Each structure stands twice: as structure tokens, then as C-alpha cells.
């Protein structure tokens, strides 16, 4: 809806302004104002604007989900408590009715009861029991992580909506959030790709200046368009993952493999949810907010970096494929040419021979 209105608005405003100032400067100022508006809109729909939009959307979603899910009745906590009481009751019954001097029989029976209890608990966990009440789970940081995981399509699944309205809201939130996120992804990818390319080319030229200085005059007109090689992108990504590994490893007391695993699974948008930084963050109320913000930024920036690499690698692969195709074509042409020349030669030779024989 937004982009539907904005160009119209811009031109409308531009024309309004122009009517005021048309007597003095005329179309010049009008053009300038129009340009200004255009730039502003372009800015809003790129880099910072989209980033701010994404962050705002996440915060809005966090507040909404917190509001919806916090009031949900804790049926499951009650249920689990009831299960536990039942189990204690049956244990007491065993103690009363059975012979108390036969240890193995008693242990066997208790084991049975415990097994039933355990199965019940497992079933409860599978339906979402977490050992924590809804208010503990849906703290603001956790809700923020939740909304992030919805619209980036990571879907950790450590926190899930339990109410009907929570589910419906999640679906609607994803419907609107995913396009916004895709916009962010594309924009961020483009911007980062451009800046990284510029950086790379600058570095490249700086390093190559000495070698190609003497043949600069000849090189300039046939200068090839530089594309960033895929390896550079991979280096950047692996460096980013390494940073994340060390950071999360230090904070969450994971070992390095787990930490790397978490980073890769997050940045690939798989999001199993067996390792989630939010789980610990929600526990400690104190200095968690800074950690959370850094975590949030890490994931968002990482997505941007992935988009950048995707952009650059696409370009690189396209160029490589084109080169390969040209090479193949040249090679085939060469071969066919050689064959024809060879054949012609032999033909000529044969003709000559036959003529000679005659």
C-alpha cells in the first residue's frame, strides 16, 4: 500500500509547492523539490529506512505477542502438577499396601509408576510444556526473538504460541512480515554487495598498481569488469560465523562446535531450536537486554551478509559460466576448423594425387 501512495503524494506535493513558487523560479525549483522528495522516498525504501522498518515491525510484533500470550491460562502447569500429585499418591499407596521389607518388589513397582509419570511428562513436553509459566516465557526479549524468528523464517520453536489468537496473529504477522523481510534482504544485499565490491576493487587496484603501471595505456581500454570472486565472499561469511561462534560460545557456555552449529543453522534459516541464545537470556533478567540487542543485530546483519554473498556469488557464477561457454565455443570452433582444414587438405591432396596420376 505504501509504495502505491508515495509517488502520487510526492508528485502532488511537488506540484503544490511549485504553484506557490512558480512566479519566481518556475520549473527549476519544482524539479528540485520533486528530486528531494524522490530522494527521500528512495531513502525510505532503501538501507536505513527498510532496516528501521524491520526493527519497528519486530518490536511491534514483540509487544503484540507479549500482550496476547501473557494472559493465556496455565493449563499445562496445572496439569503437570496434578500428574505429580497423582504419582505421589500412587507411590504412597504402594508403600501402604505392600510388604515393606521386600526391597526389590517395592523398587519394581515404584519403577512402573515412575515410568507412567515419565511418559505423561514427555507427552506434556511435546505439547509445549516448558517448566515455566507463560509470564516467564513471554518476557520482552523472548518475544522479540520470537517475532524475529517468525518473519525471518528461522522458526526456532523454543517459544510457541499456545492460544488460538496467538496462532492466528502469527499467521497474519508472517504474511506481512515476510515481504518486509524480503525487501530488507534484497536491499541490504544490494547495498552491502555494492560497498563490498567497491572495497574489493579499491584494494585490488591498490595491490595491482605496481605491476600494471607500465602497460596502463594499453590496459585501460580493454579493462575487464572486475567481479568479486566467490572465495572472498566465503571468507567474509566464515569470518562472520567465527565471530558469532566465539561470542555465543563465551556467553552461553557452549562449546565451539555447538556454537558454530547454532550460527550456521540460524544463518541458513533452518532454525532447529535445540540451541537458542534466548533461552538463557530470558532466565537472567539483569544484563540480558544488551546481549539481546547484540544477538538481534547479529542475526539481522548476518542475513544481510548472506544476501550480499548471494548477490556477489550469483554475479560471479554468471560471469564464470559465460566465460566457460565462450571458451567451450572457441574450443569447438577451433576443432571444427581444424577438422575442416585437415579434411580439405586431404581432399586437395587426393585431388592432386589423382591429377598427378592422370
Amino acid at each position: 500500500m505504501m509504495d502505491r501512495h508515495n509517488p502520487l503524494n510526492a508528485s502532488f506535493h511537488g506540484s503544490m509547492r511549485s504553484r506557490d513558487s512558480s512566479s519566481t523560479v518556475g520549473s527549476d525549483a519544482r524539479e528540485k523539490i520533486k528530486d528531494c522528495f524522490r530522494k527521500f522516498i528512495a531513502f525510505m525504501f532503501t538501507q536505513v529506512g527498510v532496516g528501521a522498518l524491520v526493527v519497528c515491525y519486530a518490536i511491534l510484533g514483540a509487544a503484540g505477542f507479549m500482550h496476547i500470550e501473557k494472559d493465556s491460562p496455565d493449563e499445562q502447569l496445572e496439569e503437570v502438577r496434578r500428574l505429580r500429585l497423582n504419582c505421589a499418591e500412587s507411590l504412597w499407596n504402594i508403600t501402604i499396601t505392600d510388604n515393606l521389607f521386600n526391597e526389590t518388589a517395592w523398587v519394581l513397582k515404584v519403577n512402573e509408576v515412575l515410568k507412567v509419570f515419565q511418559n505423561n511428562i514427555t507427552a506434556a513436553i511435546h505439547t509445549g510444556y516448558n517448566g515455566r509459566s507463560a509470564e516467564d516465557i513471554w518476557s520482552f526479549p523472548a518475544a522479540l526473538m520470537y517475532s524475529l524468528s517468525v518473519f525471518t523464517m528461522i522458526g526456532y520453536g523454543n517459544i510457541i504460541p499456545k492460544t488460538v489468537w496467538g496462532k492466528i496473529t502469527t499467521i497474519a504477522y508472517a504474511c506481512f512480515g515476510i515481504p518486509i523481510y524480503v525487501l530488507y534482504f534484497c536491499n541490504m544485499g544490494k547495498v552491502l554487495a555494492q560497498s563490498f565490491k567497491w572495497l574489493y576493487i579499491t584494494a585490488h587496484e591498490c595491490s595491482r598498481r605496481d605491476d600494471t603501471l607500465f602497460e596502463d595505456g594499453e590496459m585501460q581500454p580493454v579493462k575487464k569488469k572486475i567481479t568479486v570472486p566467490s572465495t572472498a565472499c566465503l571468507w567474509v561469511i566464515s569470518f562472520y560465523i567465527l565471530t558469532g561462534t566465539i561470542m555465543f560460545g563465551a556467553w552461553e557456555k557452549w562449546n565451539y562446535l555447538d556454537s558454530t552449529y547454532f550460527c550456521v543453522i540460524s544463518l541458513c534459516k533452518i532454525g532447529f531450536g535445540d540451541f537458542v541464545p534466548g533461552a538463557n537470556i530470558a532466565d537472567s533478567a539483569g544484563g540480558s537486554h544488551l546481549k539481546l540487542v547484540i544477538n538481534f543485530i547479529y542475526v539481522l546483519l548476518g542475513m544481510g551478509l548472506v544476501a550480499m554473498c548471494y548477490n556477489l556469488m550469483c554475479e560471479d557464477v554468471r560471469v564464470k559460466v559465460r566465460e566457460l561457454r565462450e571458451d567451450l565455443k572457441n574450443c569447438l570452433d577451433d576443432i571444427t576448423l581444424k577438422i575442416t582444414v585437415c579434411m580439405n587438405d586431404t581432399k586437395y591432396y587426393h585431388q592432386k594425387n589423382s591429377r598427378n596420376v592422370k
Partner: protein
Amino acid sequence: MMPRRKRRLASRIRDYVRGLLAFLFSNVGVIVLVVAYTIAGAFMFQAIEGGSEMALDKQMSRARTNISQYLWHNVTLALNLFNETEVKERISSELVHYQSTIVSAVHKGWDGGRSSRQWSFSSAFLYSLTVITTIGYGHLSPKTDWGKIITILYALLGMPLFLLYLTNVGELLARWFKCIYALACLCRGCPGFTKRRVARLRPQYELSEAESIERPPAWRGSSDVTPEDPPPRGYDRRVEYYRSMSAPQRAASPAPRAARRGLSVPARRSASLSSDFSYVTFDAQAITVPISVCVTIMVGYIMFGSMIFGMWEKWDQLDGSYFCFISLSSIGFGDFVPGERVYTARIETSFIVCSLYLMLGMALVAMCFNLMQEQVMHYFAGLQRAARRVARCRR
């Protein structure tokens, strides 16, 4: 004679190789590749992870024995047995402790000993599918170090492959869908038929063109200002052209809104009037399918899925559609997972149908994105034109 034949042979071989490559990198080949990759992954993860769950199972049964021993020694023997409340309290506190052990074990991937083997082939298959589709339910996750490493590598290799599958199959489906849409909704699928039909309609069009009120003013205005800014592409113009052309037959068409677009006239209008309409080509691929149809398809697919899964897993309608949506948008929370509840013989079918549903659904989403993107670009072009018009009018 010889070189020509030889070259023909070479070119034929080249054609074969090219055909093979094209096949491999297109539709069927990609599908086969994805399925094979997933099956290979399933076997691999089964081999790697199969052993670890046994260890966890043993550990849990040991924990259970421990707590019953503990209860025997510290509660039954140590306490006064005729004080019921005290004993119950004590047992309860022990149970709370035990319960937290269970919770952490389940979070580590233990299944409560309900299914004999968690990493059966079908679940491993579903696991590798969720990795490469980036759904990542997370109800199964690798526990061993090697499992994690292999998962990372598997994802890095598998995701581009699946992306290839998505683009290929999405494009293919989009093409088919356009054909079907043209056939069903616009009743002008095959090119020859449309050509004839339009040839029939042409005189009417030329008659009605003068008093056509359907034509927006932009069109009239832009025809004399085109030289200073040539239109970006053919389609915006084409639609306007067609809109006025389809006016006479609108009453007959079942979907009047949809009938507006559909035929392609690649050349300019000025050219169209001068030449004898011989350039008119009608291509089903030039049709843009309206967004509402795409949305309807997605909603229908999700409803269909929710029906199937609801039947199997005893979910209600909301939960079923929630599951389908979360899966198809590749979010994948993992709170609802097919086959998790039903530990019967049917689990195999359910897994197979589920994986089919997911793969087809992903391709359908890609298709809808394809179609919607086209349509949005189309709208955007119209918008740009409108904005330009407004700016010009105010001058």
C-alpha cells in the same frame, strides 16, 4: 562429403550432451537429484545418529532406577511411615527434581521411550528434507558431534540444490498454470484459436474503438507524448490496448476482472493501426495471473493440507492450517509435527505424503511468487504511468 558428415556427428553428440545437461538441470533431473540427495542424507543421518539415542535411552532408565532406589533408602526407610502428608511432600519434592531431569532429557532429544527408534528411515528422510528446505522443525536434531558437522555440510550443499529445484519447478508450474488459467478462465488457451477469435473480433473492435469509454485518458494522452519518453516495456501498453479490445466480449467471459489481461500485442498501437494485424501473437505466457488467484491457490492448498493432516493427527482445523502455513513458509517451529502423535503402522505413509506435500507446496509457493511478482511489476508500471500522468496534468 566426409567433413560434413563428421561435423554432423559431432554436432549430434554435442546436442546429446547438451540435452542431457539440460535434462539434468531442468525439471525431472532436478527433482530426481533432490530426492536422491534427501535419501542419501536420510541413510547418512540414520547411520550417524542411530547409535546415540540408545545411549540416551539407557541413561534415562538408569536415572529412573536411581530415583526409585533413592526413594526406597531415603524416604521409605528413613521416614516415619505413618505420617502421610510428610511422606507425600518428600516424594513430591523428589518428583519435581526428577521431572526437571526428564524435561532436560527431552530437550536433548529423548523421546520418552515411546517409539523404539527415533531415527527410523522415514524420520531421517523428513529430517534431511527439513534441512535442505530450511524448515527445520527441530523435533529431531543431531546429538553427536559428527551429526552436527555433517548437518552443516549437508545444509551448505543441499540448500543451493533445493533453490535450483524451487526455481526450476516453480517456473515450470507457473508456465503450466498460466496455460491452465488461460484455458479455463479466459477460454483462449491455444494460440491458433485465439488468433482466429481475435480475427473475428477485430472489426468490432475497430468500430467500437472510437467511442470506447473503457480507455483511460492516460492512453490518449501518452500517444502524443511518447516520443520524449518511450514506454519501459511492452506490457503496460499492451494491457491498455487489450482492455479496450476485450470490451465487446466482456459480457460472455466468466471472470470479467480477469478478462482484462491476457493477450499480448508486442508492437505499438500506432503500428497496429497501420499494419494488417499480422504481427499479433497470442501467447499464454504473456498473461499475468491476478494476485487473488494465487492467494486462493495457496489458501486452498493450505486448507487441503490441514484436512489431510487433521484426519491423521487429530488436529483441529486451526492447528492443521497453522502447521501447514508454518511449514510452507519455511518457518518450522516444530510444535506440530506429522507422525509425532501417531505411532502406528500408518506412520510410513504419513511421512511419505508429508514429504510430498512439503516438496510440492514449496514449489507451489515459488510458483505463486513468480506469478505475483509479475503481477506486482505490472501494477507498478501502471502506477508509474499514472504518476507521470498526474505530474504532467498539473503542469
